[in-house]
Each structure stands twice: as C-alpha cells, then as structure tokens.
C-alpha cells in the first residue's frame, strides 16, 4: 500500500468515526455535508482532529481546495502532509 493510500484510508476512518449521524463507513465519493451530516461544528472538530493526527502544516493558499466530498478531505490532508 502506498503512503497516499494509507493517508486516504485513515482519513476515511476518522471521518466515519466522527460522523454526526453516527459512526459509519465513509467512502471517498460521500459528500461530507449532504451525505454524512457534517455541520460547521462537525467540520471544525474534524479539522482539529486531522491536524493533530497528521501533524498538518498550513498549506499554500494557492493549493487550498474546497471540501465537498470525503475525497476532497483526503486530498487536502495529502497536500498538507506534503507541506510538512
């Protein structure tokens, strides 16, 4: 398994565990808000947990992407781990 896959799998695990609708399996195609029920509090909590778990560094604003799907979060975390 590549490093990227490991990051993606762990991100999906965390998103699934923290899901405001109750713990579940999250897929990369799931929409964070519409499918998994993450509201603003949920997204902030999630980001804090991810930042701690992956020791994320702030990334270049040019690279920042908006979050719609779980896959977007995976991508964002990959970018921020690469920035470290």
């Amino acid at each position, binding site marked *: 398994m590549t490093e990227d896959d490991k990051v993606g799998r762990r991100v999906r695990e965390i998103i699934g565990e923290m899901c405001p609708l109750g713990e579940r399996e999250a897929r990369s195609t799931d929409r964070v808000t519409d499918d998994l029920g993450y509201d603003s509090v949920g997204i902030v909590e999630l980001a804090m947990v991810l*930042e701690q778990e992956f020791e994320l560094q702030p990334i270049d604003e040019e690279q920042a992407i908006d979050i719609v799907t779980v896959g977007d979060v995976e991508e964002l975390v990959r970018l921020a781990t690469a920035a470290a």
Partner: protein
Amino acid sequence: MTTATATTADDLDAIGDIPATADERATRLPTPLDLYSRWERQPWSVADVRVARDLDTWRALRPFSRQELLNALAELEVGEVCVTQTLSSLVDHAPNPDYQLYLCTQLADEARHVRFFQSYLGEVVGIGDGSAEGQALAEATDYATVFEPELRRTTEAVRTGGGDLDQWFTALAHYHLVTEGILATTALRTTRQLAKRLGLAALDEGLANVTRDESRHVAFGLLAARAGVRDGHRELIADAYLSAVALAVEVLVGPQRKTAAPSLRPALLQRAAQIETQWELARDRMIRQLSLIDLRDLRDRAERVWADARSAALDSYQERWGVEHPVRRAEGITARAKAKLEAERD
C-alpha cells in the same frame, strides 16, 4: 414545579401583549408590574434540571467542543456572580416603587442563575466552586477583566451618590442594557445552540430557563432606559451606553483567551463564520435596543464605536498572542481570493 413554557429562539421578540398597530407592536414594552406577573408565572428550580444527567455526554465530547463550552460557561458564570453582587444598589435606589418591586424579583433570579452555573460546573464539568481551577477559570474570562470593574464602579457610584438618578441610569446602561441585553443574551443563545447540537439536554433546559428570566430583565432595562431618555437623561444614557458597548465588544472578541481554530482553510473559514455570526447577533441587538429606547439617531455613532472597538480588540489579540485572530485570518484569505479573481478577470 417546572414551567411548561418553551423558550423560543429569542424571547426578546415576545415582550409585551399584542398591541394594535405594527408600529406599536414593534416598540411596545411591558410595564414593571407586567414583568412582576410574568415572574410569578414562570418559576423554575435548579434542582429540577438535574444537571448530572449530562455527565456521560460531557465526558464523550471532543476537545474542541468541550473547550468552547467551558469558555462560554465560565464567562456566563462570572457574569452571573457579578450581577448578583451588584444589583442591590439599583434596587435600593430605584426611582419608583414599581421598579423596586420588579427588581426584587430579579435579585432572586440572578441568585438562581449563579446556582445553576455553579452546579453545572461542579457536577458535570468537575470544577468545584472555590476550587483553584474554578478561580483560575473565572479570572481568565474577558468579562472579569474588561467589564466587571466598570459594572462594579457604576453600581457602587449609585450607592455612594445616594441614588442620584444620573448615576442610576449610568449603572442601568452597563447592567441591563449591555451586560444582559447584549452580552448575556448573545452568549446564552449561542451556548444553547451548541448544547442542543451536542446533545446536552440538562444544559439546554437550564439555559432555556435562564434565557426566559433574562428576557424579563432585558425588557426592564429597555422600559426603564426609554423612560429615562424621555425624561431628560438622554445625553447621559447615550454616553454611558456607548462606553459600555465599547467594552462589550472587547469582551466578545476576547483578546485574553486564545481562540482555537483549525488551520485547514475550509475549516478555518467555517470557524471564523461561527464567531462572526455571534458578533453580528450582538451588534443587531445593539441596533434594536437603540430603536426601542428612542435613541435611533445614535445608530451611526454606535456603529462606529462598534467597528473601532472590534478592530482595537483584534489588534490586542494579535499583540498578545503573536498571531492573527481567526476572524482576521479568514478576512485576509477572503480578500486575497477576491483580489485574485478580479486580477484574473482583467
């Protein structure tokens, strides 16, 4: 006995009876004796809330939400203790018997609020009243540092001045209009939303009860201030109100405490929006209050005071912590994104 009345989003909307015209409806305020009667009809007890039922949910909270709630509870508790200790001079020197009768009911309410927050902190959060941790928590609040000294000074001046009306109205502006009408109502509303969202049923219920009481207190502040404005104390109330507003903005921004925020951009923007919504709520209350107490013409000045105090508090946050406040950081990101978009279009 518990009351069955549920408090809706904002009890400030529900003050008074139903008047005839829309204009009257918008500005109608209850009398002190209406408020006394409402007090009789709306009793509740701290014991009935059974705060300990939140224990398991509290322990399972994520660190971010737990810290947010803890900060909010600390600010509310400190504020309640302070208003409980300072109301008596306003009661003793009330300008008329109806005001005094009403204010006696408020004194009992404030004692109940202190008991509620202390019970919650003690039984659920695990921070006992008088413990070193509780002391440290209280001292670190922005209300205690910024606003409390001024509330103590203005209420004490009522006593030493022997009930001078100017001093009574100055204290009222700090106490009822700003501490209760802007800071407490905003904090209660946002904390209650969070309690609901996180499934803390006892906290939600207790905060609903406190909110219902506070809506009577706020209504009293409005009716007394409006009478004062109409009765020759206009300039004085306006000046006291604006200086209290500047302090309230500093409490809201809160430079004493580091504001937790994620650095991942989309989450940072969400976090900043949460905070900004709260500030806007408070600012809207100020504007509404001005219109209810017949100080509509103060609006521009009040908005300038607000904006200046906001920017000064954001500066002192940055000075104190060596980083931009999350709201400023978000503003920067948004401004740069906009500039980039415009540059691309040209």
